[in-house]
């Protein structure tokens, strides 16, 4: 088997040398097809795979809370107050860490500068808590996260990215201990993390601030309802715990809080708490649903998968024509092989495997090309849309190796090659091999 495959490779090499133009065009065509399919795959990979610092994605849940007044008046409040977070999520069996943060910065721009009069940059902040750094696996280049005590004391301390530190102070040594002006208020840097790519929407920011700082507006709460507010909660499940277990565990707390609300305010509230898996916030949902099962994820992946197939199919039609021409010139060879005992099935395998060698060469080129394409378009609003960052101040999209090259991605690239190869070669090869032997032998080359 192996030796036969080696012979096919040799034969494929010989054929490549024999017909350089064919091979070049074929490889180029394949490369374009694989590159376009792999761009889709890379986007999905970034949305779904464990990539720094979101290396526990499987266990991360995004909690969505919404309160409704049931008195006929339309009123709805998303998010929770720190009090709400504390009372609902305070003591959970199945949670390893619970973090509340305020993601968006809709209120105003935040400008950072090292000292008055120095260069100012608009930054993307994240108002969060100490647990945030237990949910996401940040690598601290210097210092450490701010602590619970920092938050209790309303300390103006922050964690910043290495990229921002470099922008602010260049290579002037440690950033920890310095103060950074955010909208002209000084904050003490307590930690510097290796930057999370802006494409990691849940975890990325330029500056991480405790939500207890006054500017955050994070502690806003609804006068009618002290549990509703501006915070979003992330839960890191303990290993072995499921989403359902968390939902079940929250239920009594929810009921307790609801009845307490009724007795203190006299208002009947409805309270929906949804535990979304991380992916529900990272992929673009084509079938919006409240079903967060794996089946639902797969359903949502159907459209990107179909688009990948389409990207492969269109070039495959052209490539198939080329293979067909090529087979025409090999009819006699196929006749000879049959005359000496080759079964049609064996020859079909041979043709497809030989073609696979060419396809794989194209696949490697295409894979590299997809990397280059993504790199080139990574700053465009169109690309950032896929990561819901098109409205944020993102100026440099840093990317990691793991976004492009992982065993899974190699496997996907290989499957794409195999599928493309079959689509391009199966029909022409079979048509050609169906011809009667005598007719093939008498074919003039």
């Amino acid at each position, binding site marked *: 088997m192996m*030796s036969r495959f080696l012979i096919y490779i040799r*034969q494929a090499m010989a054929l490549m040398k024999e017909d350089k133009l064919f091979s070049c065009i074929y490889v180029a065509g394949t490369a374009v097809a694989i590159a376009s399919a792999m761009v889709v795959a890379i986007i999905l990979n970034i949305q779904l795979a464990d990539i720094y610092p979101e290396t526990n994605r499987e266990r991360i849940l995004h909690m969505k809370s919404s309160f409704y007044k049931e008195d006929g008046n339309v009123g709805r409040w998303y998010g929770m107050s720190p009090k709400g977070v504390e009372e609902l999520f305070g003591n959970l069996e199945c949670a390893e860490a619970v973090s509340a943060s305020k993601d968006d910065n809709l209120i105003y721009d935040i400008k950072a500068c090292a000292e008055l009069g120095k260069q100012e940059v608009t930054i993307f902040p994240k108002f969060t808590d100490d647990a945030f750094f237990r949910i996401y696996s940040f690598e601290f280049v210097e210092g450490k996260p701010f602590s619970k005590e920092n938050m209790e004391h309303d300390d103006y301390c922050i964690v910043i990215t290495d990229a921002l530190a470099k922008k602010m102070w260049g290579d002037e040594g440690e950033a920890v201990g310095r103060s950074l002006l955010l909208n002209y208020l000084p904050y003490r840097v307590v930690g510097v993390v290796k930057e999370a790519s802006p494409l990691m929407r849940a975890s990325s920011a330029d500056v991480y601030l405790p939500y207890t700082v006054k500017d955050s507006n994070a502690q806003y709460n609804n006068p009618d309802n002290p549990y509703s507010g501006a915070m979003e909660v992330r839960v890191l499940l303990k290993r072995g715990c499921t989403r359902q277990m968390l939902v079940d565990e929250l239920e009594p707390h929810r009921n307790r809080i609801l009845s307490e609300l009724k007795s203190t305010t006299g208002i009947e509230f409805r309270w929906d708490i949804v535990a979304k898996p991380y992916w529900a916030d990272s992929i673009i949902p084509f079938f919006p649903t409240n079903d967060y099962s794996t089946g639902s994820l797969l359903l949502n992946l159907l459209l990107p998968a179909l688009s990948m197939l389409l990207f492969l199919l269109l070039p495959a039609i052209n490539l198939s024509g080329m293979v067909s021409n090529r087979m025409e010139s090999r009819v006699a060879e196929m006749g*000879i092989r049959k005359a000496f*005992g080759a079964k*049609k*099935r064996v020859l079909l395998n041979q043709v497809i495997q030989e073609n696979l060698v060419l396809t794989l060469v194209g696949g490697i080129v295409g894979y590299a090309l997809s990397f280059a394409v993504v790199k080139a378009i990574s700053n465009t609003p169109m690309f950032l849309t896929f990561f819901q960052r098109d409205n944020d101040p993102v100026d440099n999209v840093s990317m990691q190796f793991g976004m492009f090259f992982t065993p899974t991605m190699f496997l996907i690239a290989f499957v794409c090659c195999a599928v493309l190869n079959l689509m391009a070669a199966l029909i022409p090869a079979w048509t050609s091999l169906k011809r009667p*032997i*005598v007719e093939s*032998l008498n074919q003039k080359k």
Partner: protein
Amino acid sequence: MIRLTGVNKVYRTEEIETQALENVNIEVQRGEFLSIMGPSGCGKSTLLNIMGLLDVPTSGEIELCGTRIDPGLSDQRLAEFRNRMLGFVFQSFHLISSLNVLDNVQLPLMYRGMGYGERMRRAKEVIERVGLSHRMKHTPVQLSGGQCQRVAIARAIIGNPEIILADEPTGNLDSKMGGEIMALLKQLNEEDGRTIVMVTHNDLQAQQTKRIIKFLDGRQIL
């Protein structure tokens, strides 16, 4: 060894119908060296192709090495028969141009699923037998016609088939080379006892074989 009974072959194209073979009955014994002669277009190649299971008769029965070849036999079974029982030598050699001598010769063994080392060992043996040991790594275009036909003969015999079918094996060669090829075939017949059926236009060569059959317009006349 080979028995054809009531074999007919009709080619139908849109306008005309050609009766290439008409009620052919032939029996070839083990160890025979038979030549088939006749004018161009009388059906000699068609006959040989049917004997070699490269083509199917319109009607009639074929028996090879005591096995009746069922017309409905699968591609797989036919391929196995060709691989084990038959060796072909064609007028235009039919070597695979992208493969070297060694790889061309080992082809039938490859389709038998034999290991690479053993295939190469046997290929070298038969190539030596046809006197081309010094040309093993050459490709067909680097060889003369006579040398190509020797390679083809080596390929035909590597699998030890009982039957060798040769369609004008010397038709593309000058008389000296043709003579050498004839000598080689005779040797295979006499020393190895292989059954050979050869189509030829050359009276002298035909006379060197043990039996001659003559054809005219698809019928055996002698």
